């Protein structure tokens, strides 16, 4: 059914259709609306046979899901940013134990400095945690991928993060086709846990594993993610058959076949990019794009197939490995290491800048890439004058105070505050 609704609410409805049995909730912007809506649905009885736990922290939220999932309940939670960091110990634990929890990450920057706006710093902090990480481009995708995520998680016995851009998707209203229950039930079977805390057949879960078997355990975890590389497209295809929509999968091409220059990115930013790229192609520039929908597992083979004929790739990502550069770019370079393809790394949208990312500034960036003039890495839409003034100040005076405050002074915020 088509609905004009907020992204968070769409996700809540999708999760509800998946018949969750335990949902744990802790407020953190920008995912809060999702669990608020789910809470209402459980309380009103719209979601039957479901327990809604109001926990004391994100650590508690995911820990409760670990317990409920181990006890055989389809379990869900959502988080963002600092919340993800606060639960990080449990993030690794859930995947290590192979518990098929589905968690929405309303992607948001990580502080300090504290910042509530969108980038992928939170999801990236958990990129090696053993979870499957699926990025979505739209709220429709968010709905569809959540439905696929439960099936994938339970089939593999691995937890899945559905990563959606905070505010940009979570708080935006758009038309979304919400499937009906029958369709979802047909796609998503009842949860049959691979391991279960059951008095009728007791096992001990979460053993201490020493050097004698730890490597093998890790190998198997990696192997399982490699299996997901086959399963994800299969499920996406099946989903498309049932629901008539291309959602999910490993990657999504936007006219990247045959293009000299391919922009590679993830998440919602492709929505704006599509228009810029269409504009450029109309002008005869050979440029296409591709989104990585499954960041973990990272679809190296698929990317190689799609990109092998490109001349250059411009990776645009909303995250930064400080001291190294672009994270998606690093991963992509690994995939393309055997090909003579230039991979430019562009980092932008950190902490929500700009709001929104505009067609104009995107085009300037692509053109710079096409000219192969990009710095390594390239910081998109950065105010270098502010940076340089701070660097000068630091040079002059070893202890120059808080960088954040200095910059805010430069942009006038502090001065304004002080005059009030």
């Amino acid at each position: 059914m088509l609905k004009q609704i907020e992204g968070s609410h769409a996700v809540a409805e999708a999760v509800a259709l998946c018949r969750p049995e335990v949902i744990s909730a802790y407020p953190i912007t920008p995912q809060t609306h999702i669990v608020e809506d789910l809470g209402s649905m459980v309380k009103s009885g719209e979601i039957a046979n479901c327990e809604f736990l109001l926990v004391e922290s994100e650590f508690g939220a995911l820990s409760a899901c670990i317990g409920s999932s181990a006890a055989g309940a389809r379990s869900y939670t959502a988080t963002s940013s600092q919340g993800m960091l606060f639960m990080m110990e449990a993030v690794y634990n859930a995947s290590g134990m192979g518990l098929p929890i589905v968690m929405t990450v309303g992607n948001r920057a990580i502080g300090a400095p504290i910042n509530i706006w969108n980038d992928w710093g939170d999801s990236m902090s958990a990129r090696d945690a053993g979870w499957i990480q699926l990025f979505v481009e739209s709220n429709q995708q968010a709905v569809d991928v959540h439905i696929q995520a439960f099936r994938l998680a339970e089939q593999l016995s691995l937890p899945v993060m559905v990563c959606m851009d905070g505010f940009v998707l979570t708080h935006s209203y758009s038309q979304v086709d919400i499937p009906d229950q029958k369709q979802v039930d047909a796609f998503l079977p009842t949860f049959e846990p691979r391991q279960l805390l059951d008095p009728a057949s007791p096992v001990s879960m979460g053993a201490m594993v020493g050097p004698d078997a730890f490597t093998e355990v890790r190998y198997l975890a990696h192997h399982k993610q490699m299996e997901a590389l086959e399963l994800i497209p299969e499920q996406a295809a099946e989903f498309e058959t049932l629901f008539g929509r291309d959602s999910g999968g490993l990657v999504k091409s936007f006219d990247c076949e045959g293009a000299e220059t391919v922009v590679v990115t993830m998440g919602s930013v492709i929505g704006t990019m599509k228009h810029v790229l269409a504009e450029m192609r109309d002008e005869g520039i050979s440029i296409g794009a591709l989104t990585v929908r499954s960041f973990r597992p990272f679809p190296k083979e698929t990317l190689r197939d799609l990109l092998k004929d490109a001349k250059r790739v411009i990776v645009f990502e909303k995250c930064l490995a400080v001291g190294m550069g672009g994270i998606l770019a690093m991963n992509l370079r690994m995939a393309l290491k055997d090909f003579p393809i230039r991979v430019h790394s562009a980092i932008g949208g950190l902490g929500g800048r700009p709001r929104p990312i505009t067609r104009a500034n995107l085009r300037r960036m692509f053109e710079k890439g096409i000219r192969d003039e990009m710095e390594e890495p390239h910081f998109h839409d950065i105010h270098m004058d502010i940076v340089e003034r701070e660097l000068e100040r630091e040079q002059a005076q070893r202890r120059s105070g808080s960088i954040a405050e200095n910059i805010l002074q430069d942009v006038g915020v502090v001065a304004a505050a002080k005059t009030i």
Partner: protein
Amino acid sequence: MKTPFAITLDVGSSLLNKTGSWRNERPVYLDRLPPCNHACPAGENIQQWLYLTEEGRYEEAWRQIMDDNPFPAVMGRVCYHPCETHCNRGQLDEAVGINAVERFLGDQALINEWQVEAGAPTGKRVMIVGAGPSGLTAAYHLRRIGHAVTVYDASPQAGGMVRYGIPKYRMPREKLRAEVARIERMGAELQLNTRIDDVVAARDEGKFDAVFLSIGAQLPKRVDIEVNGELPVLDAVSVLRNTELEEPTGMRGHVVVYGGGNTAMDVARSGVRLGAKSVTAVVFEAREHMPAHEFEVKEAREEGVELVCLRAIREVNGEQVTLEKMVPSEGRWPQPTGQFETISADVVVQALGQNVDTGLAEAISGIKVAEGAVQVGTDMQTGSPGIFAGGDMIPSERTVTTSIGHAKKAARHIDAYLRGVSYSPAEKHEVVSHDMLNTWYYSDAPRTVRPMLSVMRRQSGFAEIVGNIDQENATFEARRCMSCGNCFECDNCYGVCPDNAVKKLGPGNRFEFKYDYCKGCGLCASECPCGAIKMIPEEI
């Protein structure tokens, strides 16, 4: 279910890890010797019969006593119960009332007519001289084995000094009769009113294969007191015997009993009952050193017996008895002071102990008599092969219980002698001292006080003065037993093992250690209430 490798484990897998290899010391179960058993002259397995009583298994408990002692109803009345003196519970609150429980069991047997069967006939015959506790006990044990026995006694009734030396108020005769009758029912032949003067001749004539001599100490010890006048000076043995035979005792008016032992108290208390106007016990020793048991002295005084301690009777003039005051000394005996006083009396009774008539034994060649006692080896055999002796006749403490113990021991050796083998007793276990126990586990419980007859009733007759304890009390009292050194299946070892390395074998079967897993922590041993587990170094 295919569970994830290494992270999820199947139950029961830790059993592969044999933690027993960590152990430096291993616990072992053992049966130590409880102090009651150790102190019992009859060697009764008291802990065991209390254990059975706790569960209400009275007949089994009684049969356990009967393994060692055929007179529970008698002993439950007349034994001075050294078991209670040594009872470890005495250090916690009060000793277990073992004697009362024994009496209860003995009486239960009489009420229910429980019987012990004789053994299959062996064809051997044993002659027993003396139908006192020792002789009858020997007869009983030998009958159980199957030997034929004939018991000879000069008196008209069986029982020896129990009958003729212990007053009725302590030892009702029907109980004694019933317990003797039980032995008779086992086929023991009693020849009463039959005095044996020549043991060897009687043996040969009766074609006996062995002899057991067990004559009681019936000859009164007397001191010479100068008597000027007609005042009768009696002895305690005769008074008690005549009391039993219901013949005149000569106890009248103001009675002075000379002596501070149990017999002195018996005769003094009998005097009260026989209608004396007053009874005064003149005691050589200081009050606190009186040889009589404390309860006897206490009860005697309650009944009106007056005590005059640290006095010696020096002479009797008419109705005046002259006493010399004594003072305690560092030596064994009090010393004279040269100060005198007199009291008036209508009769004086000497109660200074008894001797055994050893003439019978002295007449047998090979038998050695020294210091008024027949000498025997560790096998209770005299110098004359096949002739054994026990009870008051041989050097020992002269108590009924000791006599019964002798007889049990003698019976075993006589049996071995008859079969041409030698009997060697099992090695004794280590005795349990209080510090081997973990007494925290024993709940506090006062001893059940045996109901006592009112003093007025006691003074006027020979009714039994110590009442019975009822079934509930007997059970309760038995349950106060701490079961020193013997597992009573409290499950502590089974419970407190952090390694689940103790296997419970079920009621009556105790436990065993699973040494595959026992790490040797020693918790079982330290938390065993009764000291029935010991840690021993592991051989490495």
